[in-house]
């Protein structure tokens, strides 16, 4: 295991502000992510130089310019393999990927599933606004079926991806979902995501004020959020609603919304969230809860221990160094059948 180097002195949010002008549209959900990240970076305690932010293409991919760390704004869909190379080459760096729904799940879909499958020790933030913003309003792989956009004037005829389902399918070890309207929760979840040993995926439900305004309003609206969000806490019963009197029960392996005190339901009947169970079925179920029948699960849905690609690689490297007779390239060149000509 290679550890990220810690900062000698305490850092503040100011230490991570870059000199670049932030060019997102006023009201863009991405500002909330920047605020949360700026709060989390000093809390984590790592050296400023240990952070590397890698992004692809899209509005969210401008992110690396706006934090004063090492950063790489790359090409469409490729943040994950670039981050993979950074992390493999130097496992002592804290490597982050900033990506959007199109970047991560359309053009970069192949990389997305493989970086998760490998449990590459990177932190991925997927800004999901269900639209292509930078190209001005085409549907994305997470746009809901029937969405009317520039390229689907009669409504999309494609079912969307649920990012959490992909993470579960790719054997992910960490998946969380947060909203751009709750920066405190976002910061807390990001902190846990970075501390997670392995590939963490945090889906941020962000709003696009220009091309998909109120994208997640049914979940994040002030008047609906209490009933529309199931904020998960590990070890706590799954309660929601303004009075926290509603909850999720499992009946015949199926989720059911119940009300405490109604039909004899007590707090003990409510499902307790276990983010750490390796059994993926309950996490899959939580990730796929959707309106209007269910609240949408928010918070850390899955956080399970798993060995990382990086630690396995370092083990193999150490073993090879200890066992192989080839210690330098001269050894290699002279290995096997060679002969002298005098």
């Amino acid at each position, binding site marked *: 295991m290679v550890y990220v180097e810690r900062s000698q002195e305490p850092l503040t949010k100011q230490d991570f502000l870059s000199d*670049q002008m932030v060019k997102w549209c006023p009201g863009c959900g991405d500002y909330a992510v920047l605020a949360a990240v700026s709060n989390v970076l000093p809390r984590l305690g790592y050296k400023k130089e240990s952070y590397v932010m890698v992004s692809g293409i899209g509005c969210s991919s401008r992110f690396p310019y706006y934090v004063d760390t090492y950063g790489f704004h790359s090409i469409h869909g*490729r943040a994950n393999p670039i981050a993979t190379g950074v992390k493999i*080459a130097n496992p002592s*760096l804290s490597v982050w990927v900033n990506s959007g729904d199109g970047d991560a799940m359309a053009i970069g879909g192949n990389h997305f599933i493989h970086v998760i499958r490998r449990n590459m020790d990177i932190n991925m933030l997927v800004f999901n606004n269900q639209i292509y913003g930078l190209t001005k309003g085409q549907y994305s792989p997470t746009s809901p079926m029937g969405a009317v956009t520039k390229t689907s004037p009669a409504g999309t005829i494609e079912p969307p991806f649920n990012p959490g389902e992909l993470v579960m399918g790719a054997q992910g070890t960490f998946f969380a979902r947060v909203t751009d309207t709750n920066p405190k929760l976002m910061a807390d979840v990001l902190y846990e995501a970075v501390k997670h040993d392995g590939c963490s995926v945090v889906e941020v439900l962000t709003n696009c004020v220009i091309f998909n305004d109120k994208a997640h309003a049914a979940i994040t609206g002030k008047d609906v959020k209490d009933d529309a969000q199931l904020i998960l806490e590990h070890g706590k019963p799954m309660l929601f609603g303004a009075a926290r009197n509603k909850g999720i029960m499992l009946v015949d392996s199926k989720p059911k919304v119940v009300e405490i005190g109604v039909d004899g339901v007590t707090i003990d009947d409510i499902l307790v969230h276990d983010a750490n169970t390796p059994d993926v079925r309950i996490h899959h179920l939580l990730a796929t809860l959707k309106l209007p029948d269910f609240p949408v699960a928010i918070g850390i849905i899955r956080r399970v221990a798993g060995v990382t690609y990086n630690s396995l*690689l370092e083990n193999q490297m150490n073993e*090879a160094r200890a066992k192989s007779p080839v210690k330098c390239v001269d050894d290699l060149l002279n290995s096997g059948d060679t002969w002298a000509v005098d």
Partner: protein
Amino acid sequence: MSSKQINSSSQTVEKDDVVVKFAGDSGDGIQLAGTIFSDSVALEGNDIATFPDYPAEIRAPRNTVAGVSGFQVHLGKNNISTSGDEYDVLVAMNPASLKANLKTTKKGATIIVDSDSFTPEALEKAGYKYNPFTDESLSSYNVATAPISSLVGTALSGLSVQAATPKLQSEAQPQDCPEVPLPAAPPAPLDKKTIEKTRNMFALGMIYYIFDKPCEVIEHLIAEKFKKKPALIEINKKVFRAGYDYADTAEIVESRISVPKAKLEKGRYRNITGNTATAWGLLAAAERAGLKLFLGSYPITPATDILVEITKYKSLGAKAFQAEDEIAGICSAIGASYAGALACTSTSGPGLSLKSEALGLAVMAELPLVVVDVQRSGPSTGMPTKSEQSDLNQALYGRNGEAPLVVISASSPANCFYYAYEAAKIALEHMTPVILLTDGSLGNGSQLFRIPKVIDLPSIKPPIVPANSDYKPYKRDENFVRGWAIPGTEGLRHRVGGLEKLDGAGSVSTDPANHELMVSLRRKKIEKIADFIPELKVFSAANTANTDTLVVSWGGTEGTVHTAVEKLHQQGVGVAHAHFNYIMPLPRNTESIFSEYKKIIVFELNDGQFVNYLRGKFQNVPIEGYNRTHGQPFTEKEIIEKLWSM
């Protein structure tokens, strides 16, 4: 080939060089037999060059001409730089391999055939209307037929499956091996499959008898090749000996062949393939530069062996990442480069196409990166196992925007080591992607390699920026090279990426004048590298005619073109030869050399890519092309004929 009778009583003929071709079905173990033979004669002191030629299918349809796998070995006492045009000895394990190779077999050559394989069905599949042994078609060759399959069965009849691996034991089906006399009681005999698989060793034994070499070397190599399956060592050795003894007893040749040891420069030698040499050159460059090697690659014929080779050397700190696709291969390498590794990706033509966009990113980010393209016949999937030089245009131009980078090429299996090293040195010292072009023939072909010491290789000094320096990401030195600020280093936090950068500061810029400036700076950086590469050399002969013609080659055709020109010199024809290993930028003296000739002819295995590149650059010199796209190397003969015709 010159020859003389050295001792009539021992009936051994000494020859300066001999070309041996092993041919059979894919699956007959042709590549293995050829490799062991070439390794053994190299160990015995001959210079060698090899050319494996096989179908793309792992097990192509049996007994068809399309399914023939070949391994050509050219051995000699003088400098051997080609695998040879025509064969002195041909091993044909079935009718199809005889049919496929007869036209390139010298008259008077020795042909060894497995007569058991010449069944009516196999003859028909090979397209023979009648058995070639029954007419006069082989009368000008020394044909040595042997019922190899039956003889192998007899040789192994004493061996039981106890000697074989458990896997073979479970596969043993008595009804499958009618040729093998069954012992009265267990242990059961070897299965037909094992017998089939060792036919190559019988043929190898026969060949080895012809070459009058000590068997111990082969036996040592067999033990090496099968060290992970020890049960097969004795079986293979036994069949090899049986082949050797059969050739002796049956007196298959009138005279045995002796090839004297090559006069080689003093030093330590080994046999090496181009792909292995490429991998080792990259490992050597990383060590010399004080960096760790990172290779991000996706398997693709014929480049896969570079990835396979690097995965073996974690003990040297090398990390090989098998990516999910070609794009992830190069992107992971770009990430590793940003993080301070000597980063490389290896591929072949179709893979290079997939890497195009990311290559542009590496140009824009001005990060060191080595891209190895082991070229094969295209376009698209083309002929994956056949060699070509047709990715040159793609290497030079295959990106959006003005995206100059360095293109160099290796020209022999052994010098893949040095050009891989050179690619890494240029990439690291000039902060640029470098495409190294090799090809299938170079990558799979092998040659003697004089082992260097790493300390004797040129130093590599990447422009790594020290901590807390006054650093600007796009501040350049006198060679237009920017500094390499490696994540983790204090005081150098910065952003790179694909958007245009402001000169010096490196912040994002869409200023028109700045973009024009940056385009020219990126071009000048590459052009400046011409100051750091060797000048073009001309190989010419004094006191000969036709000295106004310059023969030009690049990449993997050097050996054949050079040998052809050398032969023309011996015939009194004084054409000169210039070979290019550096394509972009070209050597500084290219134009002045070209201006000395009235005629320039470029030989290349494509439809005219280098010739057009040169025409674009040097418009005052008439430049002609000689181009082939048949998936095979040039022959010396065709080059000589073309030059005679001029």
